[in-house]
């Protein structure tokens, strides 16, 4: 029996329709078009109807929080897998974004719909500026330094008792309506997801991937890699700041807990589960991890144990992530062949 099992192996072959839809030929028939559009539309439509099918007021809020994590996770995935900067500073982006939007709203009286975009851009610029000295660092060194930034900011606010100190900033306006609050974040996730996916496939994205592969060769090609890295960090940190700004207006409060490690670690876990380097994977990962973490609340402190077990199982058995697995099943069929 054992030898019989050894003499066959699983063979994976691209589906005919996958090959046909690789080029322009995809436009030739509805079937092929549908094959291309189906996964994308499942994601878009699914995300849009998710709050409608969720019961009560509690679960739609969980979806909003999941989307906020999804934005941070996308920014992590973009930086780590397309630029080669592994940033553990997701919380830094979130915190800066939420504080900026809160200050703009409470001190300057800007309405949330203006404060959020302003905080996104200004926060992105601020984060890029303070990360600028770290850009020559690579690999684990960049990771460690970026891990410091949120801790540094939290202690700074606590010790100097600025911008509300340990109490945080209260009395932030919420979004004008519940619909905007619910769908604003979802639409932003979709825009940033498809926008980033497009960006990494342009020539600009290609240069970023080249910086990840081999920065010396990019230098030798006459390009200023610091400029490219700074642009990439701006895009990623603006994404994170947007998440933070939305968070401030959803909770109507912000505080040093926005600099907490959760915002750095959970997005990374979501990226591992969803599939790194796919950009969609992190979104899926967040849509799974955040609700699961809410469901596990019933178990009290045991929650972390279950949570860790799920993560462990994914890392060990599906280290390439859900997205890579799904893609394989969708694009290829498998069969056993005798050797």
């Amino acid at each position, binding site marked *: 029996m054992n030898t019989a099992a050894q003499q066959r192996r699983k063979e994976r072959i691209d589906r005919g329709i996958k090959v046909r839809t690789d080029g322009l030929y995809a436009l030739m028939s509805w079937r092929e078009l549908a094959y291309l559009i189906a996964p994308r539309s499942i994601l878009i439509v699914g995300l849009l109807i998710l709050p409608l099918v969720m019961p009560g007021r509690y679960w739609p809020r969980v979806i909003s929080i999941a989307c906020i994590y999804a934005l941070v996770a996308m920014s992590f995935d973009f930086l780590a897998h397309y630029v080669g900067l592994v940033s553990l500073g997701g919380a830094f982006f979130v915190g800066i974004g939420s504080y900026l939007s809160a200050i703009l709203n409470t001190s300057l009286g800007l309405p949330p719909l203006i404060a959020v975009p302003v905080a996104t851009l200004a926060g992105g610029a601020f984060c890029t500026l303070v990360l600028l000295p770290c850009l020559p660092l690579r690999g684990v060194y960049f990771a460690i330094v970026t891990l410091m930034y949120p801790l540094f900011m939290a202690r700074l606010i606590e010790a100097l008792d600025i911008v509300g100190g340990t109490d945080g900033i209260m009395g932030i306006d919420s979004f004008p309506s519940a619909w905007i609050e619910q769908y604003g974040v979802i639409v932003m996730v979709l825009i940033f997801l498809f926008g980033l996916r497009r960006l990494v496939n342009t*020539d*600009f994205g*290609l*240069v970023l*991937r*080249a910086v990840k*592969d*081999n920065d*010396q*060769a*990019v*230098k*030798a*090609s*006459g*390009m*200023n*890699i610091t400029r490219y890295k700074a642009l990439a960090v701006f895009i990623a940190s603006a994404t994170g700041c947007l998440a933070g700004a939305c968070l401030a207006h959803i909770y109507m409060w912000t505080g040093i807990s926005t600099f907490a490690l959760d915002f750095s670690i959970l997005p990374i876990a979501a990226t591992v589960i969803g599939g790194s380097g796919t950009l969609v994977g992190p979104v899926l990962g967040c849509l799974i991890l955040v609700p699961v973490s809410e469901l596990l609340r019933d178990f009290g402190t045991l929650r972390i144990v279950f949570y860790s077990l799920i993560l462990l199982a994914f890392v060990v058995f599906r280290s390439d992530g859900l997205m890579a697995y799904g893609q394989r099943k969708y694009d290829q069929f498998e069969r056993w062949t005798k050797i």
Partner: protein
Amino acid sequence: MTGEPILQIKEVTKTFGGIIALNRVSFEVNRGEILGIIGPNGSGKTTIVNCITGFIKATSGHVYFHGKEITGKPPHKIADLGVTRTFQIMRPYYSLPAYKNLVIPLCSPRARRTGGWRGGGRLGDRNTVSIDIMEEIGFERDSYVPYKTTSTLPTGYLKRLELARCLALKPEMIICDEVFSGLSMSEIASMVPLIERLQMDGITLIMIEHRLRELFQVSNRIMVLNFGEKLVEGSAEEVMADPRVKEAYFGSEDIEEVMSHA
């Protein structure tokens, strides 16, 4: 055939801690010539390339390109002026398809300014232009080779890709750090005409080599480095006749082989 000096290196010294990698090395490169730099292992050949192209900063001394000082400028600025280099240990973008490797230099400010081989953008997108360059450098356009992932390509193609990356910038000068090393005899034989054509196109070359016979075949002038110091400079015959060079290379097979052919 050769013109006025375009690159001048004056008294360049580089020390790593207490080790003197380069000791007051001076030389000039004339427009349109091929200067060969040879020397035993550890004699500072690659260090001089790094000092010229800005990848490391010289401890003291000056480098002038077209009479303007380029000492201490960052690598991308020097490449932008038209002084390009290949790496001894090839540095392609392994995860990208081979032809995409050239899209990156074609995105650079210099390539955009010089029109990067037919403009890139207006007369055809960068992908088309990069396939054109690859054809010039010896990849067959209609084969699958340019489209393969770079990590699957053999050394010979990677060396060509290094040269192609320089060519994409429309350089004035290419500094080749051992383009022949690691290649088979037939691969080298097919590279030599390529180097000669680059010279005919008006590109000045500095070639660092261990393959002396092929180097002597293409180069106009030879400079010998040993222990970070310039030993001699001159034609291949002059250099090889020098007793100090013989001493530096004492026992080396290469030199005896070359001497017997000379």
